[in-house]
């Protein structure tokens, strides 16, 4: 395997693995907070059971998220020393703040998970609040560092040296607000639908306990609201990219030549020299970018060939993200009437909701791929190429295979364990009857 490809493969696999746990680390505490909060308000057992079973999942997912995140922070130095050598002083600040957010998250998750019997119900519920906040904040800080890689700022280069470092300026590159919002909302989209899918599949398997239908409602509500917000945010980002990140945008939308009346390209099959079998909707891209069918859209021809991102990978990831998000939105819309009538969904709808889990996973991963493929061939756009940042250490392909094997083992064990816990869940926990909820 090519040296740079091996390093990118390892980093990409690590991120693709970690992002699942990171997103659930942001979203799951919100769902748990709602469930336990409802238990405190209503005293209804189902909410307690729900919070308790989600918390068990969170404990496992958070641990795997913590260790897979550790791999990433090591890999910055193990794989990309050429990048970190100068970028450390520029992107270190958000990572340092992220470190503290991670501290708070880890501390309160420990208190929450092991503290059911040590704290009053209200104090216990309050402990999930810092987990929820610091999870979102830490994801935001990490995204700031990624935003810097897309549009590096906060320094000057003189004679090939980075000088005049301004860490606070570097912390907020142009796309920061959009990227942070998109990533955080994306975590809620994924968590909401993933949990809704878990509840829907339990319901389809015949589990009609109140916890399942309550859980489905809470999770779908979070998923539906956030996917609606996400569509607006995503649309704004695409327009931002058209103006500010022309290379990425041209690759996302397969704009070969700078043109007005640009068509919207959908789908396609990657071939050796590009994409074939795409569907083109005339003038639609120009309209989407500037609300005018004749607006000019910058194409790949405006980018030097050596600086162009991989078109097929970026475009197909983009379509996968947009496509699955659209399906999620439609399923959420269809669900709304049954939610308003407070009825359990009919079987076909439950099936569709069970599908939102995989769809949300595709949206999450594909969205991440768009940012990262679209950034290539740069590690920091305009500043350093990925191939110039890679470690000289030999045998990177072995490390890639080794770490991939670790992810397979961890992923499979984790999935098995979550299924096992769900199967083993007692219909009701007798201890709770003595532990009254304060109403």
């Amino acid at each position: 395997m090519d040296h740079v490809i091996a390093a990118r493969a390892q980093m990409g696999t690590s991120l693709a693995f970690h992002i699942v746990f990171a997103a659930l680390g942001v979203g799951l505490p919100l769902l748990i907070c709602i469930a336990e909060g409802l238990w405190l308000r209503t005293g209804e057992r189902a909410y307690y059971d729900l919070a308790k079973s989600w918390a068990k999942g969170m404990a496992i997912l958070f641990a795997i998220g913590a260790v897979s995140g550790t791999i990433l922070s090591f890999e910055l130095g193990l794989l990309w020393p050429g990048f970190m050598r100068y970028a450390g002083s520029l992107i270190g600040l958000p990572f340092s703040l992220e470190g503290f957010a991670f501290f708070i998250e880890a501390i309160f998750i420990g208190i929450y998970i092991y503290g059911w019997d040590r704290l009053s119900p209200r104090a216990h519920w309050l402990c999930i609040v810092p987990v929820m906040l610091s999870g979102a904040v830490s994801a935001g800080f990490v995204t700031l560092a990624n935003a810097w890689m897309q549009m590096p700022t906060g320094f000057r280069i003189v004679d090939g040296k980075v000088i005049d470092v301004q860490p606070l300026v570097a912390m907020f590159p142009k796309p920061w607000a959009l990227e942070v919002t998109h990533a955080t909302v994306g975590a809620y989209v994924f968590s909401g639908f993933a949990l809704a899918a878990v509840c829907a599949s339990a319901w389809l398997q015949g589990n009609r306990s109140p916890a399942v239908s309550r859980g489905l409602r809470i999770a779908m509500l979070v998923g539906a609201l956030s996917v609606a917000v996400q569509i607006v945010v995503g649309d704004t980002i695409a327009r931002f990219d058209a103006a500010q990140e022309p290379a990425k945008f041209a690759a996302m939308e397969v704009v070969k030549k700078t043109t007005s009346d640009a068509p919207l390209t959908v789908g396609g099959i990657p071939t050796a020299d590009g994409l074939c079998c795409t569907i083109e909707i005339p003038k639609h891209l120009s309209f989407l970018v500037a609300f005018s069918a004749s607006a000019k859209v910058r194409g790949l021809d405006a980018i030097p060939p050596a600086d162009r991102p991989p078109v097929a990978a970026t475009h197909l990831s983009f379509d996968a993200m947009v496509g699955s998000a659209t399906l999620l939105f439609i399923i959420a819309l269809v669900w709304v009437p049954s939610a308003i009538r407070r009825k359990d969904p009919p079987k076909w709808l439950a099936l569709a909701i069970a599908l939102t889990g995989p769809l949300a996973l595709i949206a999450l991963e594909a969205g991440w791929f768009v940012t990262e493929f679209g950034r290539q061939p740069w590690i920091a756009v305009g500043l350093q190429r990925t191939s110039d940042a890679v470690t000289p250490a030999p045998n990177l392909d072995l490390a890639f295979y080794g770490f991939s094997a670790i992810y397979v083992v961890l992923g499979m064990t984790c999935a098995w364990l979550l299924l096992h816990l769900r199967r083993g869940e007692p219909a009701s926990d007798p201890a709770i009857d003595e532990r009254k909820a304060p109403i």
Partner: protein
Amino acid sequence: MALAAALVGLVALVIYAVLGGADFGGGVWDLLATGPRAGRQRTAISDAIGPVWEANHVWLIFALVLLFTCFPPAFAAIGTGLYVPLSLALVGVVFRGAAFVFRNYAADVTAVASTWTVLFGISSLAAPFFFGDAIGALATGRYAAMSAFAIAVGLFAVAVCAQIAAVFMLREVREPGVQQDFRRRALRATLAVWILGLVPCAIAAGYEPSIVRGLLHPLAVTAIAVALVAGVVTIVCVARRQDSSARVAVGVEAAAILAGWFGAQAPELVPNQYTFASAASPDATIAAFLVATAVGAMVLVPSLLLLFRVFKRA
């Protein structure tokens, strides 16, 4: 400015060595759990580690972030030069954490739980070994991870973790029999620390003249003396059942060992390559980092106190 950042880094490493080290040591004792009370020893270790290991683990991330924020070229050099031992330490860290939750939550499926219990023990042993090896290799000034010196430092690190864990466990267990087990272990581990501490010194005396020069630095000599005294105090406290004082003593010992390393190497961060000053980020970055740390500490310290109050009351 660079020195201030370096001292913050030393503090973070000391806390990681004591708290994270105790968690690794717990895993080592889990692996070595024997006798009629093996099961209860393991349960006690799980109960002690459970609520705190993730928070303790963050000190490693913090130290790592500090290194790449404040001393980025040194981070790049260390990542390249110590690629192998750090990768292996990383694998250890990953499996330790994953194995711990897997075996706890799969406790009812014996085959799964026992497999991950073994992996938990092995990885708890591997992580400190490779971290120690990496530190030893760094000290040689030529990234000699396979050198006798580096390997000896790795073994020494394992012994220190086991010692800290055994001492810490004394206040975690209620059952007298299990407590007696850990008391014996604390005494033996302290002896192991002394013996395994002598080995790298002896190897250095024979083969690593630059390290010997560093160790003769007054700061290093003082730190080693403090570590030895703290070790003796630990033994006395353990034997006299003054378990709280033993905790403090063993913590001081670990801090002194790391301070000794710091003193032996300072002002060099990567021997023969970078000093703290030559690897330092611009002042603006370090200042921002220190401010962020101060602000972060204001949130962190009360949270940590709450965590330990909820779970570690006597």
